[in-house]
């Protein structure tokens, strides 16, 4: 019976899904057989893959795909003979069978393109299958678009690799269904409406509570009037008895009615509150449930790895064992997609560069086989994904060399880089330390993409490497991509959101504490002077920033992204919230500075900003567009008194402090410093930084003198010295020093941060 086109199309889709699942079973079954399991397990795996081949044969026949049917048939026959014991499996057989599995996939791709797999290709596959006894490595041409058969070289690694990867194993095939992501997203939207309804119910409950207050108020009034009522009743005044009786009757029934009303109202309140609570529970559950439907076990990602590692290992003649842990951990679908490439790259690197060839390993006293471990773990609201190997470790010298060769780091600076900084260099594009780029990796474009993908998911990646012990990559990602935490701020009368992951700090900066860089407002933060940029200006929201009174405090958000910091002036802080960041609709594909919008609980829309764009905008334009002089008197600079007997040290420190925006006075010893303080001609310094070992008066005595005098005791004193012993520290503290910094661990940041902290 001829099938209608529509029927055929639907059948094809179903067949494709079924095919992927069976191919997955075959793939995993073969891999597990290869590892030589116990006899009972072996028998069951064999049955499983036999059934899979059989099913493929039958299904292919149903949709009239003869080539797939034929291949599946041959595989089925072969597996049958193995089950019977007529043939025993050799390593070459595994290669053959696995590549045949790939071949079926290739055949399917041809069909999807409405083409037919070329006859030569088909013949080659069948020949290989029939040729089981011999160990010919006659290669089947790899990609379907070019049929130049490769000469007898190492088995092509990209064999059938262009095709869509073999699908994930179906854990319980009959218990799962495929759902389009768009449908799930629509469900989430509907849920949004439910939440708005919930908020309205909340409001209703609030209003009911207010009603309750009315009855209470009534009862209070009645209690006040009651004594009068009682008196009147007892001494009925000279008025019409029936009038009085009616009135009294009314008052009494009034009281009964209100009592009844109050009781019923309370009962109703209780019921409504219950319903409200239940609604909240149900909505939350539903919300979580729908969110989790988008989540898949990470096994769907990990499943691709064993095969890849095996093939790569064989190609490079390395013996590698892959250990996988945490496959059941679930992750958002989108995140899984974005992780695919980074994971592939990291695994390839581990095989290619990390694990040494077996002879080398044995010579080093390591076990012959290298181990790569893949581990997924949920920690709180994050997923931690680890890829580690016990191979060579990253060759830091090679990285250093490559960095200077490619001009990433000038050669003088390279030696100064800490180990951590050197390791970090591998994430820069264009850096490859492989001798020659192999087919697999070493093209130098991988690691930066890895980091970029992770940042796109609001995640991060860290590396740890020890020479000869191996390398570990740790990736951290949020479990759901759909929601993120944002800080809501007011800007020019509007509310906007800033992603919390980029927010370092929020501060209220007193106007008097605002310094300047080249005439533009700047504040001290992160140990240096950051230009203070107005968010209003940055977003082109208004021409004029409101002027501030002298004693006002400016709300400032310090944002950071990949080591860069900016200080943004905003109108005010509102709150932090967990929101779903949604795109702006099909007309607004990309708007500068805007990441998307979020719908708050009450339906209000809030624009969420794109921090990367903001930073670029600041870089691109000049400071004048964004910084507006705060409309008050010009603040004076902080004054620091620097005391040290070494002229070199004095010059160096003065330079550092002046660069940070301070005014610096110097003294060559404690006595000079003390006299300068007592003179007060130029006014008291705001802070003193002093060495300890000095002639005439040392740092300890200076500190004691300053702190001992009530006129100067408020001036912060920082002792900077090379004396690092507990007694000296104690001595310094006892003298009254506010901070004690050791010169040997002395670096700019610590000093500047301490000053920033203490200066008032």
């Amino acid at each position, binding site marked *: 019976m001829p099938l209608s086109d529509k029927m055929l199309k639907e059948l094809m889709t179903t067949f494709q899904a079924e095919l992927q699942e069976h191919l997955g079973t075959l793939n995993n079954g073969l891999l597990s057989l290869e590892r030589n399991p116990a006899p009972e397990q072996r028998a069951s795996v064999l049955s499983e893959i036999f059934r899979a081949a059989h099913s493929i044969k039958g299904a292919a026949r149903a949709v009239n795909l003869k080539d797939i049917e034929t291949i599946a048939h041959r595989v089925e026959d072969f597996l049958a003979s193995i089950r019977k014991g007529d043939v025993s499996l050799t390593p070459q057989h595994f290669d053959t069978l696995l590549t045949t599995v790939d071949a079926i996939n290739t055949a399917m791709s041809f069909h999807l393109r409405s083409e037919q797999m070329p006859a030569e290709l088909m013949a080659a596959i069948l020949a290989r299958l029939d040729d089981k006894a011999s160990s010919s490595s006659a290669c089947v041409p790899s990609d379907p678009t070019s049929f130049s058969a490769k000469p007898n070289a190492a088995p092509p690694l990209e064999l059938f690799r262009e095709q869509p990867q073999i699908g994930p194993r179906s854990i319980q095939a009959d218990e799962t269904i495929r759902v389009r992501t768009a449908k799930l997203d629509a469900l989430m939207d509907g849920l949004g*409406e439910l939440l708005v309804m919930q908020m309205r119910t909340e409001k209703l409950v609030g209003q009911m509570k207010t009603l309750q207050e009315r009855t209470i108020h009534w009862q209070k009034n009645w209690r006040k009037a009651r004594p009068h009522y009682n008196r009147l009743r007892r001494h009925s005044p000279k008025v019409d008895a029936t009038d009085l009786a009616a009135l009294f009757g009314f008052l009494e029934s009034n009281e009964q009615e209100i009592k009844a009303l109050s009781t019923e109202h309370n009962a109703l309140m209780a019921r409504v509150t219950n319903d409200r609570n239940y609604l909240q529970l149900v909505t939350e559950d539903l919300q979580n449930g729908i969110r989790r439907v988008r989540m898949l076990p990470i096994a769907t990602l990990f499943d691709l790895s064993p095969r890849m590692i095996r093939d790569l290992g064989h190609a490079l003649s390395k013996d590698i064992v892959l250990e996988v842990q945490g496959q059941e951990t679930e992750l958002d679908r989108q995140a899984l997609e974005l992780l695919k490439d980074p994971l592939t790259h990291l695994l390839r690197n581990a095989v290619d560069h990390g694990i040494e060839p077996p002879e080398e390993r044995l010579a080093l006293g390591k076990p012959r086989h290298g181990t790569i471990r893949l581990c997924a773990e949920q920690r709180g609201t994050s997923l931690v994904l680890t890829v580690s190997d016990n191979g060579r470790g990253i060759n830091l010298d090679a990285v250093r060399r490559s960095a200077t060769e490619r001009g990433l780091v000038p050669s003088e600076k390279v030696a100064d880089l800490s180990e951590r900084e050197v390791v970090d260099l591998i994430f820069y594009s264009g850096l490859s330390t492989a001798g020659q780029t192999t087919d697999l990796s070493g093209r130098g474009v991988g690691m930066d993409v890895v980091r970029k993908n992770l940042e796109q998911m609001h995640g991060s990646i860290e590396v740890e490497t020890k020479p000869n012990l191996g390398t570990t990559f740790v990736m951290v990602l949020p479990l759901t991509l759909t929601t993120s935490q944002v800080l809501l701020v007011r800007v020019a009368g509007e509310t906007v959101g800033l992603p919390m992951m980029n927010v370092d700090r929020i501060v209220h900066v007193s106007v008097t504490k605002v310094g300047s860089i080249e005439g533009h407002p700047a504040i001290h933060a992160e140990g240096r002077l950051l230009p203070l940029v107005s968010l209003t200006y940055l*977003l082109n929201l208004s021409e004029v920033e409101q002027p501030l009174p002298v004693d006002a405090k400016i709300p400032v958000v310090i944002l950071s992204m990949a080591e860069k910091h900016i200080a943004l002036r905003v109108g005010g802080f509102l709150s932090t919230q967990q929101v779903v960041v949604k795109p*702006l609709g099909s007309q607004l594909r990309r708007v500068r500075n805007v990441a998307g919008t979020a719908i708050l609980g009450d339906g209000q*829309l809030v624009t969420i900003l794109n921090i990367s764009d903001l930073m670029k905008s600041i870089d691109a334009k000049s400071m004048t567009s964004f910084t507006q002089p705060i409309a008050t008197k010009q603040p004076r600079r902080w004054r620091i008194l620097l005391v040290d007997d070494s002229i070199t040290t004095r010059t160096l420190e003065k330079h550092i402090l002046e660069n940070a925006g301070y005014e610096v006075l110097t003294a060559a010893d404690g006595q000079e410093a003390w006299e300068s303080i007592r003179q007060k001609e130029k006014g008291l310094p705001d802070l003193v930084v002093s060495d300890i070992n000095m002639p005439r008066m040392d740092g300890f005595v200076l500190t004691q003198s300053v702190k001992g005098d009530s006129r100067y005791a408020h001036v912060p004193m920082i002792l900077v010295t090379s004396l690092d012993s507990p007694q000296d520290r104690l001595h310094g503290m006892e003298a009254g020093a506010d901070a004690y910094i050791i010169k040997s661990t002395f670096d700019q940041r610590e000093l500047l941060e301490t000053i920033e902290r203490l200066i008032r």
Partner: protein
Amino acid sequence: MMQQKQPRAQKAVLAKPQDVRGILEERARLLARQPEKKAVSGETLEVLTFHLGTEYIGIPTEQVHEVQPLSKHHWSRVPCAPGFIVGIVNLRSRIYSIMDLAVFWGLPPRPPSDKSHILLVRADQANDQQEIELTLLTDDLDKVCHLRANDLNAAPPTISAKVQSHLKGVTSDMMMVLDLESILSDPHIIVREGD
């Protein structure tokens, strides 16, 4: 408090109660006249008319999926978006952009008022293979008219070529009838300002 959801089939023209009566009466009148009209000139085009700045505009009702008063919904501006984007609106938890055609055509922007409405329109973009949905801002809602084919004239030369390409034609009372397919397939309405 809870908004009654009008069935789609009703071609939901959600206007104020006092307007509804007027619209219905007009419709009844026109429907009553229709057979006679059909005999005369063939096809009629039903348009919803409104003001936008200084312009009087008609949009074929067939192409309008929804009409909503702007003040009844949560909407916000979008910083750094081009001037013809008034902002974005939340309609039943779906986000749509709000476009001011007048600004797109080069006229100065005006702030929305409480009479402002938004018209939800939709089209498939053949080249992109993606559906585009957006809302068009109106300053108010006027009435529903029926136009005959010969009511539409070519636009006078005072109207720029760009605007003309967005119109099906202009009536004798200077009502500009929109060609929605043309507007929605104009690549310049898409905002792609990024890297």
